[in-house]
């Protein structure tokens, strides 16, 4: 335990005293949150977004209008959640000849007027839902926290261990009674604390100004962040297991990170993307984190709701740890 504590303390000191790295870890996500909040604050004024359930070929001219974006849904409750959060202006259920409007949405009212003036819509029954709008920044902030966590874990553990191996720090530790498990777990816990702390600082700091929507429990958000962080660190350890070249490690890490960042729903929703892409996105730990964090923040999901995400992340963690411990070499 003394060895573990000493190694962890040394790594923490290294991180905290590396001012450039520290500020990057704190300021980069803050810039992103404010930057994207500003960039998307104007909203999308030119389109109506209409969720459509059922075959849209059979109905009205309204659905053929070029200023309207149709988004097909298979399940009504899912589409209605989007409507409640003002992510859709209207939902039309063609199978049941009904349409749904959010009574708090002005755009929804305009869309409704256009729809009911169409002959094809005369037999449709009207239903209402209600709910506060979700700003882009509310939706975006779990993605930023997740992305920052991903970079911090994979580079802060994976790349650092590769550097230690290349410059001989690992060889020097090998010449002491320290076991690989003690060294690795010290790195893991050190980074877990750092990521949790920076995530909390970034979240609370930006929340003062932007007041994010928070429907669920803060503790659940911290829990899923901790589980995802351990998973990401374990993923980083796979790269760190035996690569000696920083350049190679850098290349391989980027090869894994960029697709994960692009297709985990950090910047845009995967709804409406091809099924293959949505299925592919399930292999990324970041997808499961962002999905669970958004569910907590925006839908008020409880622990039971995010258990499947936690289970997947823990399963991935076990797999990554198994592979990295099997492959690990000091030199």
């Amino acid at each position, binding site marked *: 335990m003394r060895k573990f*504590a*000493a*190694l962890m303390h040394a*790594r923490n000191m290294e991180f905290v005293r590396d001012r450039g790295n520290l500020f990057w870890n704190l300021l980069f996500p803050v810039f992103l949150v404010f930057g994207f909040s500003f960039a998307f604050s104007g909203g999308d004024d030119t389109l109506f977004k209409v969720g459509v359930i059922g075959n849209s070929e059979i109905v009205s001219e309204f659905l053929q209008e070029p200023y309207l974006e149709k988004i097909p849904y298979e399940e009504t409750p899912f589409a209605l959640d989007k409507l409640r959060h003002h992510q859709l202006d209207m939902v039309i259920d063609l199978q049941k000849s009904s349409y749904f409007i959010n009574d708090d949405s002005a755009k929804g009212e305009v869309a409704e007027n256009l729809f009911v003036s169409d002959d094809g819509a005369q037999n449709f029954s009207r239903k209402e839902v209600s709910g506060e709008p979700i700003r882009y920044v509310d939706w975006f902030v779990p993605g930023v926290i997740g992305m920052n966590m991903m970079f911090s874990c994979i580079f802060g553990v994976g790349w650092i261990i590769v550097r230690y191996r290349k410059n*001989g720090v690992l060889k*020097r530790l090998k*010449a*002491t*009674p320290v076991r690989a498990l003690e060294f690795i777990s010290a790195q893991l816990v050190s980074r877990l604390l750092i990521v949790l702390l920076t995530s909390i600082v970034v979240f609370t700091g930006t929340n003062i100004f932007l007041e994010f929507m928070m429907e669920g429990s803060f503790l659940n958000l911290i829990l899923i962040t901790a589980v995802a962080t351990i998973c990401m660190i374990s993923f980083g350890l796979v790269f760190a297991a035996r690569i000696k070249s920083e350049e190679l490690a850098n290349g391989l890490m980027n090869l894994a990170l960029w697709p994960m960042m692009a297709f985990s729903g950090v910047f845009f929703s995967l709804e409406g993307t091809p099924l293959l892409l949505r299925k592919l996105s399930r292999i990324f730990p970041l997808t499961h984190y962002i999905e669970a964090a958004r569910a907590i923040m925006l839908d008020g999901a409880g622990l039971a709701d995010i258990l499947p995400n936690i289970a997947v992340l823990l399963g991935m963690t076990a797999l990554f740890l198994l592979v990295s411990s099997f492959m690990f070499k000091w030199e």
Partner: protein
Amino acid sequence: MSSILSIENLSKNYGKVLAVDNISLKIEEGICFGLLGPNGAGKTTTIEMMEGILKPTTGRALFRGKPIGPHFHQRVGIQFQSTALQDFITVEETLKLFSALYSTHRDSEEVIEICSLGDILKRDNRKLSGGQRQRLLLALAIVNDPEVVFLDEPTTGLDPQARRNFWSLIEKIKKEGKTVLLTTHYMEEAEILCDEVAIMDQGHIVARDVPKKLLAENFDGVIVKLPWMKNNQLPDGAVQVDDYIEIHSMDIDATLHHLIHHSIHLDGLTIHAPNLEDLFLKLTGSSLRA
């Protein structure tokens, strides 16, 4: 005396390259043993197999007569040829870190005193000079109060002043009765510090004994050195070595008389007793620092 370290028929291959070729050694407890040789002779590979860092291709390394076991690194201290230290932590923190890695360790004040680290305790590892850095690495090698200290070319790259300071630290460690295994290609270092030496070349041990005995067995008389010149009147046995003429002289008076008698210029002439460098040259036909 009992042997604290020994190696039996040790070999190491790197692909098709045979770095160490079937060598055996026994090192007695409490001595400073020098492993000498030029770059690429196999010194570092040998010492790292003895340290339990490298796995031999064949043969084995023993500590107190038994194969290296799980507690070996608790009982030995190692200074590698090149080691980076963690950035952004101080000398004092580095010492504390390494002290915590051992189940027993000696008093930090003692280590700081032996390795003269008192003035640089608060200094970041990144800002240490070459000499300060080697002193810290030596401190890390003795922080666990080891029975054996392995030092792999500890003074390479240091200026002459820092090198001499480092020798005095090794002398202090020797006085504590610890066994020191030192590799070097500085012959002066080996002559000053080592009780016994083994000379390696191309993966083999070509000679092994107490330095004075080795020299006595291989040389009589002195060596006269002159800058290279083309002259047919040089005494018998004169050979060209690099830019010099070397004359092994059994009778210095007669040799000098011969040179003066034949009007050979004596500018740059030096006379010295044979040393380990000369011995290596004699045994292998090449310079130690080649």
